[in-house]
């Protein structure tokens, strides 16, 4: 179609400037096009002629033998039934999106796999949802793995275990190989890293060090300790953080030795012990080497207080229990009584979260839920603990809080915050208490329906956190005669519909 190209070119620059080459003219003439008409007409007629040829003479693309696709592997699991597939379609298209993890887990539990036509959307949607990757891998079947091999965007699901990648691969491929090695043979990973450490760039050092966070143990300590003498601050910082995560690391011991100088127990006349807290005057090289930033602003307070806070937040908070020979609850009480209570409690929160100390997590959350002196503690950042909460602790604490509440849960009530932010499923008991808290208020309240505004987000959360088989129980006994019912009807309908959706979704997944 040389002529077509020549014609399009003339059209682009216009007939005032574009010219026909003589051989092209001859071709057009041979096709019977009248060459004596005005130039524009001639072009238009030729275009019409060639565009028809292009349309009618479309040449298929020839695919050679070697370019032909491989077949996908044979499946070991059945695809879920059509109803489940339709449910998945609804989840992917909007309002029930939060039910996706539940859908995937139930699918896997029932030994089924995802329908093929939904695979591309799921694979794409979950590219950045790392928490869903294990479930995705377990449910996409051979077909999904085959697709992930073809589309590099979906390669996140593929384990690259090519040892050559370490020597010759791109940065991402090396990292993937290193991560794989760390997950399967953690000690070999350290040896490998040590061998090539000096040749690595700053960026790759940072990325590779971070991989060590999984399966961290005493066996990594020697290497990490050597990293504290690195020239670059960025590396030292990561290494110090890793070392502090190793419970009995020398770094933690060193830090604790420093802290013991600063924090001491004093007996007082009224038999109640009190802590005497001294702020660190200096920040010596040893402290800086162990990751303390001398000028950082930590929590609130001045430079010296910030140094103390940083030190406390690193050391396992349980060290203090041993040191004072007290239980976590008792230690916490002493912390609270101190003049530096706020700083000590905030540091304990971070340490408990860092070291996954569940006893301390429970003690801190219980204190926070029950503390009457809200004013004093309102600046605490409690969020790190929310992520550490076990489902049991969440349910126990919230049930305890709800039982005490006679009126509608206040927006600033810790229970409200926990209900709104936690990812844990609600026990049936908890669900009933939440709903009766709302119902009782609706029965009493006659006008101020907006007072319960924050309860809408609790209901939204509950729609996905409550046990869906409670749908029938929960459908009954709503105060439809209440004067504020009409302003809540829609939200409650939504809540019940979501439960019902999840219930049928789970039931349908049980039928193959």
């Amino acid at each position, binding site marked *: 179609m040389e002529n077509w190209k020549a014609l399009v070119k003339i*059209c682009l620059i*216009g007939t005032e*400037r574009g010219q026909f080459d003589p051989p092209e003219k001859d071709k057009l003439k041979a096709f019977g096009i009248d060459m004596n008409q005005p130039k524009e007409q001639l072009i*238009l007629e030729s275009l019409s002629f060639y*565009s028809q040829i292009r349309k009618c003479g479309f040449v298929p*693309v020839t695919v050679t033998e070697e370019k032909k696709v491989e077949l996908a592997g044979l499946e070991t699991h059945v695809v879920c039934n059509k109803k489940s597939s339709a449910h998945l379609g609804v989840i992917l298209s909007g*309002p029930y999106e939060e039910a996706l993890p539940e859908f995937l887990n139930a699918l896997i539990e029932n030994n089924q796999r995802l329908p093929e036509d939904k695979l591309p959307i799921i694979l794409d949607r979950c590219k950045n949802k790392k928490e869903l990757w294990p479930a995705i891998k377990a449910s996409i079947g051979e077909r999904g793995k085959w697709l992930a091999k073809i589309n590099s965007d979906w390669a996140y699901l593929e384990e690259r275990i090519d040892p050559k990648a370490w020597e010759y691969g791109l940065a991402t491929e090396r990292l993937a190989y290193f991560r794989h090695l760390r997950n399967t043979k953690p000690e070999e990973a350290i040896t490998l890293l040590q061998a090539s450490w000096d040749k690595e760039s700053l960026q790759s050092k940072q990325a590779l060090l971070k991989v060590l966070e999984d399966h961290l143990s005493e066996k990594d300590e020697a290497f990490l300790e050597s990293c504290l003498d690195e020239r670059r601050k960025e590396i030292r910082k990561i290494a110090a953080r890793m070392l502090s995560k190793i419970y009995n690391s020398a770094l933690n011991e060193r830090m604790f030795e420093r802290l013991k100088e600063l924090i001491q127990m004093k007996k007082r006349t009224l038999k109640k012990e009190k802590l005497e807290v001294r702020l660190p005057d200096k920040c010596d090289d040893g402290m800086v080497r162990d990751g303390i930033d001398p000028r950082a602003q930590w929590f609130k307070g001045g430079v010296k207080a910030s140094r103390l806070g940083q030190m406390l937040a690193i050391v396992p908070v349980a060290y203090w229990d041993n040191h004072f020979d007290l239980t976590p609850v008792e230690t916490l009480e002493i912390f609270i009584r101190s003049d530096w209570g706020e700083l000590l409690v905030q540091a304990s929160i971070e340490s408990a979260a860092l070291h996954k100390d569940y006893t301390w997590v429970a003690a801190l959350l219980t204190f926070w839920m029950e503390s009457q002196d809200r004013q004093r503690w309102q600046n605490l950042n409690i969020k790190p603990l929310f992520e550490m909460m076990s489902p049991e602790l969440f349910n126990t604490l919230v049930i305890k809080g709800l039982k005490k509440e006679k009126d509608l849960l206040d927006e600033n009530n810790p229970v409200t915050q926990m209900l709104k932010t936690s990812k844990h499923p609600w026990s049936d008991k908890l669900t009933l208490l939440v709903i009766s808290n709302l119902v009782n208020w609706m029965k009493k309240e006659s006008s101020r329906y907006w007072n319960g505004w924050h309860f809408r987000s609790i209901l939204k959360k509950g729609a996905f956190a409550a046990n869906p088989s409670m749908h029938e129980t929960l459908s009954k006994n709503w105060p439809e005669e209440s004067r504020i019912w009409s302003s809540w009807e829609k939200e409650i309908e939504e809540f019940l519909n979501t439960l019902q959706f999840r219930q049928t979704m789970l039931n349908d997944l049980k039928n193959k």
Partner: protein
Amino acid sequence: MNWSVEQVLGLAPDVSSAKRGQSLAHAKKWLLIEANDRAIWGECKGSGSRPYRTRIDLVGPAYKCSCPSRAFPCKHAIGLFLLRVSSNEVVIKPEPPIWVSDWLEQRDKKRKPKVKADLSPAEIKKRKADKAKRLAKRVSEMQEGFNDLENWIVDLIRQGIAALESRPYSFWKEMAAQMVDRKISGASGIILDMALIPGSGPDWPDRMVQKISSLYLLIRAFRQLDKLPDDFREEVVQVAGIKYKKEEVFEMETVEDVWQVLGVLESVQEDLNLRRTYLSGKNTGRMAMLLEFAHGNMAFEGHYFVGHSFEGALSYYPGVVPLRAIIKKRTADFNAIQKVDGFNTVKDFLAHYAKDAGKKPWLAHAPCILSKVIPQDQKGQFLLVDENGEGIPVQNRSFSGWKLLALSGGNPIQVFGEWTGQHFVPFTVMTNSQWINLSDS
């Protein structure tokens, strides 16, 4: 009643209407629930003093409800339909009450072609002559418009289409409006399509030139209208924008068959919703396309389930390659399709398409079933490849290319879609066990 719960829920305009409908699918919420073979009707307790009266015509289906909701079908219609499908609390009554039968009658009247009063031969002759006169007048008006159009495209070519990249939308819109004034709405549509082309990809000049040439062909064809053969003249006149009334189409070629729904595609043009439904006749092998429009929030009349068939008669719009049709009559029942036939090789289809495009130069979308093709991804370009190793390019819009690949797993599949002359737009994949509408999420 061969409707399933999923199909009924599929009729809802959105997920929340479906959910609300579901919560109304309980007999206790209704004062009356009755049905016969043709329709379902009921009275639902609402917040007003009077109950809402909901009625469903299964031919279509179509709905009417006295509630104020703007959702269509409303939650009452969905709830009532669900009750009929899933519960046995619906009372079967052969004769519907008057508020239902009146509505059904109205609907039948609208659908049936108007019966012409007996006219004397002279009267018929006069009417025909009048019509021919009106047409001649319109054609001469259009001729003038076509002269303007020709000057306009000659100008485009003279100045060069590279300049079009910097033209504002109003440049196109004004010309399109001028064409509407001249009663050439066909050209107006092509011009509005052209407005979107400049700068829309490296091959935009090719596509622009293609559109210009189709306008030019229309100008040339229209200029010699009276010399054209009858069916081609019909074609040209319709492409230019002279529309047939439904009643006129009902008198054209009508084909009775079992119509199999191959694919449905909804799209939006300006503020108009468009729906293209492709059908193939089980016995005659004829293809048909229903083209429907709905303004703003209005819903399309009726619903077609891909992979199902219904019995009925279609009337075709006249032309050299008749494809567009309307339903003259149909039954309410539908059945799952077992199997459809298609082209075995890409070349067979392309030859068929070339034949049609040769007859009808403005042919844009042509329906196509490819029976045994393997989808492939060749460096980001999707292809459907036949057993001879020959393939056609596929448009990959919202993952449709990847869906094809996922469904095949490297094995041959049967695909239905539209061929635009340059690429294939997939609609539906037919596997042994099911038909999958690729536009579903």
